[in-house]
């Protein structure tokens, strides 16, 4: 069953699939991909400790973003019970982010890691996550036919799942969205303070040669929409 059939049959639209390079992935409306074969959950751009990163520079953003992001992640992990979690980079907003984690948040993160593999893909915001955070560190990784990395490669990215660009679709409001042409996927940011870039922006649009479909995250469902139906915005 494809995404659109799922969307039509009200009951199953909760996790419509997205097919990339022949691999079927399930989309969680909270903004995560689940790969059933490997039982892997893939999230992009958590930007933990973004609030405190701004506070260092005098902008006292509410210090609740890490807790909010981890709370959402907890729900998603409880839903899919993955064997592995892959964070696609920019998991922390800056290199010192891990050191600023509040004790409660650090505990929560350890609890999430327990009993499963946890892979931090390196991002431009967090090229080196310190060892005390736990988990494995990779620049990129293969998952069957898929290649997972932070920044989309300019060429030859068959089967690539990447983050970095924070795509959003503007359709009845501004919403996070997965953008795919069946060859590759650009994933939306998961972090509570992570903003977005319109999927029509050249930085995103130029990555795709085929027809783009946006898997748009609604309140508690995902909708596959033709990218041309989404407004320009900024």
């Amino acid at each position, binding site marked *: 069953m*494809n995404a*659109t*059939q799922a*969307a*039509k049959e009200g009951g199953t639209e909760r996790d419509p699939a997205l097919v990339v390079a022949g691999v079927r992935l399930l989309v969680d409306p909270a903004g995560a991909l689940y790969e059933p074969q490997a039982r892997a959950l893939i999230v992009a751009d958590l930007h933990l400790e*973004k609030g*405190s990163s*701004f*506070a*260092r*520079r*005098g*902008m*006292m*953003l*509410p*210090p*609740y*973003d890490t*807790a*909010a992001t981890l709370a959402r992640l907890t729900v998603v992990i409880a839903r899919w019970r993955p064997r592995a979690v892959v964070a696609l980079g920019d998991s922390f907003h800056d290199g010192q982010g891990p050191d600023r984690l*509040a004790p409660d948040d650090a505990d929560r993160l350890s609890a999430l890691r327990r009993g499963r593999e946890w892979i931090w893909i390196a991002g431009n915001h967090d090229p080196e996550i310190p060892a005390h955070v736990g988990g494995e560190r990779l620049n990129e990784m293969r998952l069957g036919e898929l290649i997972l990395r932070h920044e989309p490669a300019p060429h030859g990215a068959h089967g690539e799942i990447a983050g970095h660009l924070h795509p959003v679709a*503007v*359709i*009845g*409001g*501004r*919403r996070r969205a997965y953008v795919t042409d069946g060859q590759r996927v650009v994933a939306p940011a998961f972090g*509570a*303070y*992570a*903003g*977005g870039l*319109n999927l*029509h*922006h*050249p930085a995103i*649009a*130029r990555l795709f040669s085929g027809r783009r*479909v946006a898997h*748009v995250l*609604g*309140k508690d469902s995902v*909708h*596959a*929409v*033709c990218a*041309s*139906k*989404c*407004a*320009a*915005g*900024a």
Partner: protein
Amino acid sequence: MSRGWSARAHQLQIVASTQAGRSALLIAPTGAGKTLAGFLPSLIDLSERCRANSPGGRLHTLYISPLKALAVDVHRNLEIPVAEMNLPVRIETRTGDTSAQKRQRQRRNPPDMLLTTPEQLALLLASPDAVHLFADLRRVVLDELHALSLSKRGDLLALGLARLRSIAPAHLATGLSATVREPDELRRFISGRGQLADLVTAPPGAPADLSILDTRESLPWAGHSARHALAEIYAAIGAAKMTLVFVNTRAQAEFVFQEIWRLNEDALPIALHHGSLDAGQRRKVEAAMSAGKLRAIVCTSTLDLGIDWGDVDLVVNVGAPKGASRLAQRIGRANHRIDESSRAILVPANRFEVLECVAAVDAARENAQDTPVARTGGLDVLAQHVLGSACAEPFAADALYDEVTSAAPYADLARETFNRTLDFVATGGYALKAYDRFAKIRRAADGLWRVANPRIAQSYRMNVGTIVESDVLKVRLIRARGAKAGTAYTGPLTRGGRVLGEIEEYFLETLSPGDTFLFGGEILSLQGIVENEALVRRANSAAPKIPSYAGGKFPLSTSLAERVRSILATPAHWKHLPEQVRDWLNEQLTRSTLPGRSNLLVETFPRGGKFFMVAYPFEGRLAHQTLGMLLTRRMERAGLKPLGFVANDYAIAVWSLADPGRADLAHLFSRDMLGDDLEEWLQDSALMKRTFRNCAIIAGLIERRSPGREKTGRQVTVSTDLIYDVLRRHQPDHILLEAAYADASSGLLDIARLSAMLDRIEGRIVHRALDRVSPMAVPVMLEIGREPIYGAARDEELKAAAEDLAREANP
């Protein structure tokens, strides 16, 4: 002002007040020599100083204007008497355009008179040499005070004046204002500490020659375009020397300009002026106007205030005036001389607007003004001021609290609220004390608060002010380069084309690449958005979209609303109305009834398989939109299955699957809707988020510009919507949410007015169950489809697009 002038009575009274050591408020119509009156005490003082040969070199008079252009203009006008009196007085302006070098010099070696804006005053006061600069200040002149006092800029100004009172206790202030309903508020604003400044009132000018266009065409039921009357407006322009055509929104300005040019067979020089056009373009129009090269300008409120740009002999106000004071201000733009009457024509765009115009003309003839909504100083502005105070010099919390509460808008500020504001400035004011080590201001062992490091002060200076622009994108014309219409522009970043102006981002969010829209009098096609620019090319289209702009629409004022209700309730007065309108009202009386002075008429009727409920509160669009949101929630719970609603300034229409006529209307409209329903709705309200964004920026939570980072087009580096969501969930009693809620109540959501209305109509609902739509319901019903339907869940749009794709995939 004429050469060889003799002083008028009110000018002498101002001098008398000043010589008696009292501050004063001068209320005078335009053209009464108001500005000169404000400066007269200073000129006398300075000429005496000059005779006594005492040294200058100290700042004597500070003049504050809401517009930098006005400060420049006043400077020019002031040089004339100073030259004639042969006074060795140095007068300078200081605005955002003043060079850094000159600004520095002004601090070291100040002029005798400095003409500036509230933002520049805040900047001067936040510098360590403020005490030195202002120590000998003798006079403050506050121009167009009515335009400032009831806004956040007014809060900032009031706090600045409080600071000046501490630094230079001997100075006296003179406020200049157009006629206002309650001068005591301005008198307290000027004097501070709850004292009333002297009141001087100049005699009113010659009564205006006011008329309502008696159109030969059929009067539209709804809409604001005034399309029917454009030929008649064009004829009026042709018969006058120079006409200002005022409209209420930038969208209307675009439309009216476009359509008048279609009629412009004589190729009269007619220009367009509104706030989104490129500043250079606007300056060109203003210059052409003062050079007498134009016959008409189609403009928005950007030309409401102050400056004489030319010899305007006719003002045309298209659409409803919305408020008596605003209309008076606009009428005053014609014949800026006290003894000649101004000529103005009001052009109602629909039937309801005829009533509103009649009410406004009555108000103008009685010289009646709108009652301003009393204003409490914003906590976001206070936060900015607290940081500014620390940038100037270390302060004691007790002393600053005392000073702040001497400013009229903050007279009732509780100490606890002040303390929370202080805490917010220092570390964000969060229950979770995560940011102590990043504090922006700290209390040292001596008990005084200081900025933590110089970067904080630098950032304060870059972000001072209370005017928050919406996120805008530059509109840049690019060459076509073979791009096909209807395709997104994904090519290289072609730059180099001309910038046409700026457009609000949220309008662009309604466009897809290839869509056409009207801007600056041209039809443009959106090619794509690159960084902070919307790339466009010229296009042809029969139906371009017209940009909608935030905040462009003023709601109907309370006092005009009362007058309209009173006209409706008194058929004896209808003889002044055009026949078409009279017939319309008589028909309404036969088929239903008319809204009374203080009741609420509610009509219900079936139509097209749905049930409609139309109510006529006359409380303005903003309050009606809030009412609609709350009403539909309540109807949902009552099982009435509401589908949507639309609102205009006069009425609201809700439609549903079940008949609301059978429901308990008193319960539906009871004021407890302002409790939980409101709370729940505020969570997702886009208007609330926009309000929060403004507060977050003014309060300094978000920096528009940061030291060491070049200006980017997008002002804000982090989404305030996301911050709002997180803050609301984790600390709903945070001071910024409190500030945003207070703003929303009087601003975009107009909860205060809605609340007053719900009180007024309690036990006074008049219900008519009809078998079909009534004549009076037609205008609001016609809004359906034109205006966004607020009741509809926005996910619907998303689902519809998904179904489109599904159909395409499985034909």
